[in-house]
């Protein structure tokens, strides 16, 4: 049997339950006597709580209990931040239910527990909270200014994290060309389609928590560590989870409070979020101001890059809030060679929803800034932006290459991906059309955007995470259970929420063990079934979790060898493995299939002395490097210069994600990622008013694009295997979202450069584009 499954466009095993409505979303769970929680949230961006009166709510029909922060003060602890990026970082206390002060609209101040959700919602109206308003702090630059009102007593600056490599003075001293730009990463709302939900069932002093989470294992550990519930008495289940994009990579107030309420009442409780509640309470993403300085030679060679970043933390530091900009720190130099890099990030508190990981987490921001800056530099030099990139990128002969940021890129071929994209896109032809439209003064101008991105993913080598002060490791765990019938159960510590692990892991195991794809079942997302794991985020599942699965298979094969030798009465040294079977070298008729060995192990009647009667295995894998997918995305837009309307005419993406296990899944990940990146470029923004009220609380105000708003994407691939792992895989979950935003915005600006426009803030709505054009003409904004 040869390798047959890796690379096959297998349709997904997951689909059967999902297309028929037989799903197990957390909100589907019903338990006898299940009570419903409703949370009362602060309507003030910043206020002192002077009193909370829940007595009227307690007497309302159907209400079992009502609580304020005071009821939990002794036991609720503080929501954890697992990434204290500097020794002197300010990590303010973050009680799951506010007790003294609220710092963003949406912070929980009280709750009702009732027999049904309608009764709970009704009783919420009866809670009386008195607030003493405090000043809202909304603007990062103002927040850092002397005399600004404080979000926290300790100040508005959480940390400053620096990185300097190379001689910056030399790079900038006498540099023939220096450009300085400031870009803005707007605040985004991740908007997974499934709103969050929790259910907790207490039995004696043990608890089962179901949650729509990406991280059941991390959540279990932190619930135990903070609340003092013995870890062995806590089971966390992530059933079918309807998307995450980082928003469910979190340890939330609602999860803590669900467990605490179940413990207080000794009864099962459930909480289901509405969309408008979620927009106020699920962490947001991005929200950075990026001050960029590039020094270059006249021929375009990059000398140095300086990045001074302000990152809006929001009101508190959540699980990895301060680490998000750090994940970008190493990516500003992207695929380019340069002599020096300096990066400084200041984490700033504001009275807004906390920020945290959102698809790409730090890397989309960095990629946007460098690609935008490369376009700006090309314009300054009067050079084709693609040519400027070619003059600076790492060539394929130079791998492995240690970048100015200190990472070692193991593999890549930027020339090949770009050449393919340029051809598919018809780059030269479009440039000709652009020139002719410019010459004729066509009111609809054509713009071409380029993103030659790379990213670091497959998070991550544990030792490196330790050096960056991250609170956990970056390994992943897997186990294989060989069933007596020869079927296989694969247990993975990755926790899928749409990625298709059940299918992809089956493909990997089918090749490794030589068993049929259909004979494999993948289990995940329940700490009682999958006791160890680091879960799913940072495009890590395949590049880390998939390799753990390979490791577990190798152990099964090694155990099977000893047993096969005993059954065949030959020396193990005389056996050779052909996928699915140990056989005698030179006498292939003499052999045992893995299914036969599994059955023999079940019976265990005649195993060799001292051999345990089990083929099952466990493996954990800690990567030795990040992986570095890359690619070239090209976007053509038409911009109506009279109305500011932008429409995407074509979008070509050639990505190199290393070896592909399932091309169907890879293509789907890229489609979705590209769509999210386009959404940032053109549509989405979490907007606040001057009092700190979120204006985009619903999907009517926060414009998640529909099918009618997005183009058809033309995809292709190059394949440069990763050398850092045995499958040669790199990960694909975030690549699309990292790549597409600068390609689209770059295209919009490219269309308008002849009109004098050098930047359009995201999202590039008609209004913003029109204003940019008008302003460039010398008109009013």
């Amino acid at each position, binding site marked *: 049997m040869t390798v047959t499954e890796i690379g096959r466009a297998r*349709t*997904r095993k*997951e*689909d*059967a*339950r*999902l*297309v*028929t*409505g*037989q*799903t197990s*979303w957390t*909100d*589907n769970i*019903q338990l006898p006597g299940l009570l419903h929680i409703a949370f009362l949230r602060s309507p003030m961006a910043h206020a002192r709580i002077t009193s909370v009166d829940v007595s009227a709510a307690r007497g309302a029909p159907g209400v079992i209990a009502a609580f304020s922060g005071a009821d939990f003060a002794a036991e609720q602890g503080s929501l954890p931040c697992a990434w204290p990026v500097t020794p002197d970082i300010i990590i303010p206390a973050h009680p799951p239910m506010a007790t003294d002060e609220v710092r963003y609209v949406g912070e929980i101040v009280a709750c009702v527990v009732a027999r*049904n*959700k*309608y009764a709970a919602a009704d009783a919420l109206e009866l809670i009386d909270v008195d607030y003493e308003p405090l000043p809202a702090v909304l603007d990062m630059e103002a927040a850092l200014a002397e005399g600004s009102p404080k979000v926290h007593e300790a100040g508005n600056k959480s940390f400053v994290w620096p990185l300097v490599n190379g001689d910056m003075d030399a790079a900038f001293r006498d540099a023939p060309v220096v450009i300085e730009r400031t870009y803005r990463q707007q605040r985004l709302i991740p*908007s*997974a*389609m*499934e*709103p969050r939900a929790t259910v907790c069932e207490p039995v004696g002093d043990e608890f089962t928590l179901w949650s729509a989470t990406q991280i059941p294992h991390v959540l279990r550990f932190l619930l135990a560590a903070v609340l003092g519930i013995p870890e062995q008495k806590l089971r966390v289940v992530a059933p*079918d*989870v*309807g*998307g995450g*994009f980082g928003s469910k990579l979190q340890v939330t107030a609602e999860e803590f409070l669900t467990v605490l309420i179940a413990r207080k009442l000794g009864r099962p409780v459930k909480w*289901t979020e*509405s*969309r*408008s509640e979620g927009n106020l309470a699920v962490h947001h993403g991005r929200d950075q101001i990026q001050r960029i300085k590039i020094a270059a030679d006249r021929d375009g060679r990059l000398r140095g890059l300086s990045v001074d970043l302000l990152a809006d933390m929001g009101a508190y530091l959540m699980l990895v809030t301060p680490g998000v900009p750090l994940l970008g720190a190493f990516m500003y130099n992207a695929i380019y060679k340069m002599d020096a890099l300096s990066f400084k990030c200041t984490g700033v508190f504001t009275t807004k929803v906390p920020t945290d990981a959102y698809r790409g987490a730090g890397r989309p921001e960095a990629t946007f800034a460098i690609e935008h800056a490369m376009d700006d530099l090309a314009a300054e030099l009067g050079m084709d932006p693609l040519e400027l990139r070619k003059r600076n990128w790492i060539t394929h002969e130079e791998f492995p290459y240690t970048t100015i940021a200190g990472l070692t890129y193991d593999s890549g071929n930027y020339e090949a991906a770009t050449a393919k994209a340029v051809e598919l896109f018809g780059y030269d032809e479009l440039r000709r059309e652009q020139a002719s439209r410019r010459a004729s003064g066509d009111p609809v101008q054509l713009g071409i955007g380029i993103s030659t991105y790379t990213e670091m993913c497959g998070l991550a080598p544990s030792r490196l995470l330790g050096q960056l002060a991250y609170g956990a490791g970056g390994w992943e765990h897997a186990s294989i259970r060989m069933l007596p019938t020869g079927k296989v159960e694969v247990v993975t510590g990755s926790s899928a*929420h*749409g*990625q*298709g692990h059940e299918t992809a892991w089956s493909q990997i195991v089918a090749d490794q063990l030589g068993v049929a794809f259909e004979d494999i079942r993948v289990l995940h997302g329940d700490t009682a079934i999958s006791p160890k794991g680091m879960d799913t985020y940072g495009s890590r599942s395949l590049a880390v979790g998939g390799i753990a699965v390979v490791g577990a298979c190798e152990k099964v094969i090694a155990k099977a060898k000893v047993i096969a030798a005993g059954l065949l009465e030959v020396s193990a040294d005389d056996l050779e493995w052909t996928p699915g079977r140990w056989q005698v070298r030179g006498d292939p008729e003499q052999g045992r299939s893995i299914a036969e060995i599994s059955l023999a192990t079940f019976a265990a009647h005649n195993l060799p002395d001292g051999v345990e009667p089990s083929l099952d295995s466990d493996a954990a894998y800690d990567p030795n490097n990040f992986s570095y997918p890359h690619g070239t995305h090209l976007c053509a837009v038409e911009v109506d210069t009279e109305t500011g309307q932008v429409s995407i005419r074509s979008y070509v993406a050639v990505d190199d994600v290393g070896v592909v296990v399932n091309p*169907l*899944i890879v*293509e*789907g*990940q890229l*489609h*979705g*990622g*590209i*769509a*999210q990146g386009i959404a940032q470029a053109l549509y989405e923004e979490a907007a606040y008013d001057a009092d700190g009220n979120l204006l985009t609380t*619903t*999907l*009517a105000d926060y414009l*998640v694009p*529909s*099918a*009618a708003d*997005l183009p*058809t*994407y033309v995809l292709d691939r190059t394949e440069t295997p990763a050398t850092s792992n045995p499958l040669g895989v790199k990960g694909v979950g975030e690549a*699309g979202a990292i790549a597409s935003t600068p390609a689209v915005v770059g295209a919009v600006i490219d269309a308008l450069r002849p009109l004098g426009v050098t930047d359009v803030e995201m999202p590039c709505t008609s209004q913003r584009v029109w204003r940019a054009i008008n302003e460039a003409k010398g008109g009013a904004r």
Partner: protein
Amino acid sequence: MTKVSMTIDGVRYDDDVEPRMLLVHYLREVAGRTGTPIGCDTSNCGACTVLLNGMSAKSCSVLAVQADGAEITTIQGLADGEWHPLQRAFHEEHALQCGYCTPGMIMAAADLLRENPHPTEHEVREGLEGNLCRCTGYQNIVRAVLRAASEGVAS
């Protein structure tokens, strides 16, 4: 409480409900038909789309009492012994990832193809404008609907 009776996926249900109860809550919590999920509270996302007397409706914007006497088809009642061509096409074209929007997307597509059995790509995109997906970027959803159309799903 108000008495309602309706047929859901071929089975008749009679219940007393609060007049304010949404149809989607009735489906999920009273009738136990949890295949239809809820994605928003402003009728923008379409995750809760069902067929109400054969026409697509967002079940979050209909009261259970308004559906009194109606015939409802949810994603759980779409397959007739074997998968509906749209269910098959969504699977074959990898038109779902997390799958949360899928029930509504399929039910909306069924109604779209009823009205327009052979839509263009543009008509599919416009026709599904009321259903949001965060995972797929829509390309494979559009492909799946076109595939089901080419297989004559409406006939």
